[in-house]
């Protein structure tokens, strides 16, 4: 029963959705502060190469994950400085971050006399429970059979949700994203709050990136993450800026990414659909969902932070 295609597909969707959860929750936190960061793709790649490298050097997965978090946070400071201190176009600055990060990760993977590319990971994330409850029908593989980061992703989504809606700091954060001038007059340091949350979002994106070469495909290859960073930006809107919904949106897209393997097992005519057509599914899904969710009057109920993408000038109070 645990070998049925449905179970296998859901398990694969959870694996493929996990890095998307980290990146999406990170971007939700960033956008809740009013900063749009289109640099997620580049930040994930920098996190991926740093995390893989750190584990490769030390053999420690913990250090790899720490390195990816730090690299993501440090890398996103560039965007924070441009959009918060210099107040230039967040859209162009984010794109710049992605282009730079994409080039940097590829370069670091190939540079030097002993390049990383093609090297297997020295250690990888495996299921934390083998046998026992992990073999129970249905709930075993679906709930107990995952690696530690799958559970960390659940905790991250829950914690982010609690932080946003149940804590004082979360309230300040949302105020900064909705109406920075009012937040400032209520004693909130807008620039500081924005810096911290852009960096937190970057750290989570870096972690999401590292999940690919340390868990999903434990080797270093050029661009191991595909278009995950771009998908995450769409998922933020589909999740309407709520971390819990990001969990389900990410798994849905994980399933969409997995669909070609599932269809191949179903035999004709399903298995004859070309992979290139199936590869379009997540992107088509994102466009349809975007048009359905964000158009016209519905957009107002979606919950986009009102000050998202708008530079804040303290002097203009």
């Amino acid at each position, binding site marked *: 029963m645990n070998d049925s295609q449905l179970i296998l597909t859901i398990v694969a969707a959870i694996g493929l959705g996990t890095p998307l959860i980290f990146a999406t929750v990170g971007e939700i936190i960033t956008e809740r502060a009013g900063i749009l960061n289109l640099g997620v793709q580049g930040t994930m790649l920098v996190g991926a190469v740093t995390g893989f490298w750190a584990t490769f050097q030390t053999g420690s997965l913990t250090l790899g994950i720490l390195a990816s978090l730090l690299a993501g946070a440090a890398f996103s400071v560039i965007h924070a400085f441009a959009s918060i201190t210099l107040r230039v176009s967040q859209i*162009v600055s984010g794109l710049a971050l992605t282009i*730079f990060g994409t*080039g*940097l990760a*590829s370069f670091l993977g190939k540079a030097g006399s002993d390049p990383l590319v093609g090297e297997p990971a020295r250690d990888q994330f495996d299921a934390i429970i083998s046998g026992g409850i992990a073999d129970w029908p249905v709930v075993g593989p679906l709930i107990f059979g995952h690696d530690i980061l799958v559970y960390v992703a659940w905790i991250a989504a829950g914690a982010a949700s609690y932080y946003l809606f149940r804590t004082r700091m979360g309230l300040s954060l949302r105020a900064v994203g909705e109406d920075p001038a009012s937040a400032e007059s209520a004693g909130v340091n807008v620039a500081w709050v924005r810096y911290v949350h852009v960096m937190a979002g970057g750290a989570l994106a870096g972690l999401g990136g590292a999940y690919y070469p340390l868990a999903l495909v434990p080797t270093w290859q050029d661009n191991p993450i595909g278009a995950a960073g771009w998908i995450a930006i769409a998922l933020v*809107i589909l999740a309407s800026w709520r971390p819990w919904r990001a969990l389900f949106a990410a798994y849905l897209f994980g399933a969409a990414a997995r669909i070609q393997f599932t269809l191949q097992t179903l035999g004709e005519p399903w298995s004859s659909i070309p992979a290139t057509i199936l590869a*379009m599914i997540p992107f088509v899904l994102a*466009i349809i969902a975007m*048009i359905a969710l964000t158009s016209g009057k519905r957009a107002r109920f979606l919950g986009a932070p009102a000050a998202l993408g708008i530079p804040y000038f303290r002097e203009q109070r």
Partner: protein
Amino acid sequence: MTVRRIIVEPRGLASLRLTLTVPLLSVLAALVIGGVFLWITGDNPFTVYGHMVDAAFGSSRGVSETLISATPLILTGLAAALAFKMLVWNIGAEGQFLLGAIVAAGIAIAMGDTIPAVLAAPVVIVAGAVGGALWAAISAFPRVYLGTNEIITTLMLNFIALNLMNYLIFGSSSPWRDPLVSTFPTGRPIPDAASLPRFFNRLDVGIFIAIAVAVFAWYLVNRTRWGFEVRVVGDSPETARYAGIQVPRKILGVFLLSGAFAGLAGALFVAGPVGALDPRSLDLGLGFTGIIVAALARLNALAVIPVAILMGALNNAGPSLQSIGVPPEIVTMLQGAILIFAVGGEFFIANRLRRPELPPDVLATGAAA
């Protein structure tokens, strides 16, 4: 002593010298950053940069290849510059470029050698522009009539276009695919009638078309009523509405024209140097590089030309670095860094920094000391 904060004031119109200095410094700063990474990974940055200059400009073949690389970048740069000028965030030049290439190659192959070259090449080029505009329309109409965020839709359409091209070549036996090559699929060569004439090594007349379109775009934006209205919408949509400008129609027009520029780039690339719908030659990120071109040119259509040549030189030099053991991705890194500094530099063009003036008594004691 009290800490003196720096005062930031908006500057009126920046001087020409400043608007030239900031982009030049951006390039220089990016070279320094790239140099640091080259040095860390064990290469001498000066050797690497010297090699790049030599590959891009050191021979007549180098120069012609640089201009070949620059041709599509002029057009994708214009696509971004025009759209961004009106705050239309068309991030989809990549996909519109590919659709232009797909449509152009399709029409060229369908016509075969039945139509004389004087007609065939223009038809193919216009078809490519229309293809790019139609691909942009998928994002433009929801943006204008439903308010759908165009950043996400144009981005997603890039990946759909890429997979569409891969489907036509790798996933099916479509008319675009070369039936004579079976081991590793590639595009069917377009007929000679649709190919652009070459005049300097491999360089074809596409470069003149791209330059002419840049001049046209500059004239359109800076010297026509349409362009004036576009600039008003870009500065303030509110003002534009009060002035009676039909903002939705303007956005639609700019969006489609932006897509047409990118589609034209794809068509010229297929009808010129590539000569087929070849995914390996077309999937180079030329749409994204166009955004860098536009930003460094500060959205000025004429400045797009020299900036595109600079980026084309970098793209051309990249692959040659493999011969000295340097990953060609240093080029993407440099281009990304250039964009980071160029967009950051906008702050210094838009604002003036100064120390606050000191109160008279402080000045007096200062003079006494």
